[in-house]
C-alpha cells in the first residue's frame, strides 16, 4: 500500500469522510479512476492505493511535481453520530477511515477501529482510534477471523472493504454505513454506470447517492464481488 499526496486546497478544505476524488492524468487510461480521500491536511489530500492495473501502476510511478487532474470531492460521505463508533475495514478499505476517525473523535465519540486482512502481511501499518483491533483470516496477528466477527457492538458501524465483507457486515448491522465499490464512468452522476442494486428494487448511483449506503438498503446478491479495489 502506498500513499500519494496531492496539492488540492479546495478539496482538502471541504472533503468529508467517505467522499472520493476522480483522478485523471495525461497519458493515462481513457477513464478517470476513483479514490477515497485518505487524509486531508492543509492544502494536501492523500489517497492510498496499490498497483492492481494500468491506472494504479501509472499513479505509483509518478514523481513529485507531476500533475494529476483531481475532480472532487464527490459522492456522499459518512453521517457520523453516537458515542461509540466502530470503523471496520478490509484491505484497501482503510482508505476512508482516517477521516472517519478524525470526524468521530471531533464529534466526541469513542472510536474502535477493526482492520481485517488475510494475513499479517496485508495489514496496514497505522490506524487511528482509541482502540485498534487487528483481525487476520489465518490468525497470524490479532483476532483469528474476519473483521466483522471481531467487532464489538456499538452505536454506529462504518465499514469499507471488499463487497463480500460489507455484505457480511450488513447481516449483522442493518444500519451500518458502508462505502461500496463499483466501476465508474464519470463519477459525477451523468452516466448511470455505477449502478448499485437496491433492496427496494431499482438502482442508485454509487457516485452520487453513494458510495456510502445504509447496509440493509443494498441488494448484496446483485452487487458484483469481483472488482479490483481490494485484493
Amino acid at each position: 500500500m502506498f500513499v500519494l499526496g496531492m496539492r488540492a486546497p479546495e478539496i482538502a478544505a471541504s472533503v468529508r469522510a467517505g467522499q472520493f476524488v476522480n483522478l485523471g492524468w495525461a497519458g493515462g487510461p481513457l477513464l478517470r479512476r476513483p479514490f477515497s480521500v485518505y487524509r486531508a491536511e492543509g492544502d494536501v489530500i492523500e489517497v492510498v492505493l496499490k498497483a492492481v492495473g494500468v491506472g494504479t501502476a501509472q499513479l505509483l510511478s509518478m514523481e513529485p511535481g507531476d500533475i494529476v487532474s483531481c475532480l472532487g470531492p464527490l459522492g456522499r460521505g459518512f453521517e457520523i453520530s453516537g458515542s461509540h463508533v466502530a470503523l471496520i475495514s478490509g484491505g484497501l478499505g482503510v482508505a476512508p477511515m482516517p477521516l472517519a476517525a478524525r470526524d468521530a473523535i471531533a464529534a466526541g465519540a469513542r472510536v474502535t477501529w477493526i482492520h481485517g486482512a488475510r494475513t499479517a502481511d496485508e495489514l496496514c501499518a497505522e490506524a487511528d482510534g482509541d482502540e485498534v483491533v487487528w483481525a487476520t483470516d489465518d490468525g497470524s496477528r490479532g483476532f483469528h477471523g474476519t473483521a466483522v466477527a471481531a467487532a464489538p457492538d456499538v452505536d454506529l458501524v462504518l465499514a469499507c472493504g471488499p463487497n463480500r465483507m460489507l455484505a457480511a457486515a450488513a447481516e449483522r448491522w442493518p444500519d451500518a454505513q458502508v462505502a461500496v465499490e463499483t466501476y465508474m464512468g464519470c463519477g459525477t452522476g451523468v452516466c448511470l454506470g455505477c449502478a448499485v442494486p437496491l433492496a427496494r428494487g431499482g438502482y442508485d448511483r454509487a457516485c452520487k447517492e453513494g458510495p456510502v449506503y445504509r447496509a440493509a438498503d443494498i441488494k448484496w446478491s446483485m452487487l458484483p464481488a469481483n472488482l479490483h479495489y481490494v485484493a
Partner: protein
Amino acid sequence: MIVDMSIAVGGVRLRGPVMAASGTFGYGTEVPLLERRAVGAMVSKGIFLRPREGTPPPRIAETPSGMLNAIGLQGPGADALVRDYAPKWATWDFPVLVNINGESAAEYGELTARLDGVPGIAGFEINISCPNVEQGGLYFGNDPRAAAAVTEAVRRRTKLPVWVKLTPMVGDIGVIARAVEGAGADALCAINTFVGMSIDLNAYKPRLSFRTGGLSGPAIRPLAVHLAHQAARAVRIPVVGIGGISRAEDALEFLVAGCSAVQVGTATFVNPCAIAEVHDGIESFLHARGFKSLADLPRHLPRD
C-alpha cells in the same frame, strides 16, 4: 474573437455547434463546473414512455481508447420527465431535445404525443438503436422500413423538430439515412455506439452483465467520421456528427466531412468542461484561419 458560431440544424437554432450527447449529460442538472455559455443544445438521457430499471451491474468496461456501456436505458419514464425536468429546461438558455425510445413504432408515437407541447422540450431525437420487440428483437436501426415507420410515427405526433439518431451497425448507412429523410426527419445524428464485447478471463464470461455493450470514445472516431460523411452524402437534411469527440480538432473532422454540428459524449465523463473546450477550440481555429463564421468553414470534402 468575433466568430459567429451560431447555426440552425434541422429546425433548431443553436448558439454554437457543440451539443451534449444523449446519456452522457444526464438531464443536464448533474454536470459539475458546467460552462453553460458553450452548450449549443442538450439531448437528454434516452427515455421510454414508462419507467425502466436498467441492467444489473457491471454496466461499463474500459477498452483501449474507449468504453463499453450497457445501461439499459434506465429512466423515470415520460410522466416524471415532464414533472421533474422539463420545467427546469424551460428556464434554460439552450434548447433541450429529448432522446426517445420504444419497443414498437406505436410506442414511439405514444411517447411523442405525451411530450409534444410540454414547455422546455424543443424537439426530439429518435434513438432507433432499440430492438423492435414486434419483429423478434431485430433492430429498427438496420431495417430501412422499420426505421422509416418509427420516424413517421413520431413525425405525425409533433410539429417540433424531429432528429433521427442512426446506428452504425448497418451494411449501408446511406440506405437508412434516405429512408428516414423520406419519412420526415429534420436532421440525422450519426452515430450511436457500436456493439462490442469484453471478456472477464477470471470468470470466463463477459465483463458486462448484459454481455454486450455499446462502444464509445476516441476509439470509434475514424469509423464515426466515415459514417457521418456517408450519411451526409446521402441526404439533403443536416447531419450531426457524434463519436469520440474530445478535442476541437476531432469536432472539426466531422464538420469538414459534411456535418452541420456535433455532439460530445464520453469526453464529458473524463472532462466535465469538454463541451466548452471543444467549442472554444473551434472558435480559435476559425479565427486563426480568418473565417468570420462557422458557416464559412469548407464543409464538404471534394467528392470522388
